[in-house]
């Protein structure tokens, strides 16, 4: 194991660069994911993203979040200290089949995207009644 390893690899401010030139650099937004018996809730930090620049797509068991932040800045701005380098956010998750992707509920408030993916009716936990005799 080498001591020269570049440790700061994956955190909120890291750029996720792709090989294909068509993809621009994007940040990976921080998420909180919680599951209870009715479904999964995801909170994602997307500061500076208005509703019209947010794209949440569900396809083939894959949930993807793509967003672009725009912070209005005055003309002639000379940026001296940058901790958030790119305005694009991208993250994708695979969704297991017991979640109902047709009933995803998404809301964006103050830069926080809240996604609620309920479980399919058939996958909800249920008690089985045992008949005597």
């Amino acid at each position, binding site marked *: *194991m*080498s*001591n020269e*390893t570049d*440790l*700061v*690899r*994956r955190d*909120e*401010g890291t750029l996720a660069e792709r090989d294909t030139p068509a993809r621009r650099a994007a940040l990976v937004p*921080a*998420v*909180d*994911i*919680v*599951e*209870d*018996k009715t479904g999964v*809730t995801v*909170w994602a*930090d*997307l*500061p*500076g*993203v*208005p509703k019209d620049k947010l794209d949440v797509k569900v396809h083939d068991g894959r949930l993807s979040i793509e967003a672009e*932040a725009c*912070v*209005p*800045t*005055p*003309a*002639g*701005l*000379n*940026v*001296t*200290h*940058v*901790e*958030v380098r790119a305005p694009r956010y991208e993250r994708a998750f695979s969704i297991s089949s017991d979640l109902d992707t047709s009933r995803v509920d998404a809301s964006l*408030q*103050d*830069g*926080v995207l*809240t996604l609620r993916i309920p479980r399919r009716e058939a996958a909800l936990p249920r008690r089985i009644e045992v008949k005597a005799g």
Partner: protein
Amino acid sequence: MSDLFFGNFGTDLFREFDRLQQQMSVLTAGRPLSLRASPGVFPPINIGSTDDSIEIVVFAPGIDPAALDVSIDKGLLTIAGERKRPEGAVHEDARSYARERFAGAFRRVVELPSTANPDDVQAKYNDGCLSIRIGKHESSKPRSITVQ
């Protein structure tokens, strides 16, 4: 990061954290962090300047702007606040798979140049971004001088 999983835990892990600490302090050098600043650099800040103002953008989603504490004292701009976890996250029978978002109290301090005028400050909170505009003293704005 993958090297951490295959190396020995114990001393190697702590050495990597020390190096991370050093790298973070290099990145934030020149900006005085208050003693009580939170370790994980939340919220991130971008700083820029124009001819007549200093613009600071703080990326802090999910915060109530009324609870944010923005103040200037002796040339230091302090942004402090607290972010709580959303209610659904702290349920008893809920399982948490990821907890990457910062929660808790935070404080960031930015040193303002002497050209900044602390009486001319505007702050706006939009879509999770706090934009602070600090005007510069009139006398420090660039001006051209006509030669007769």
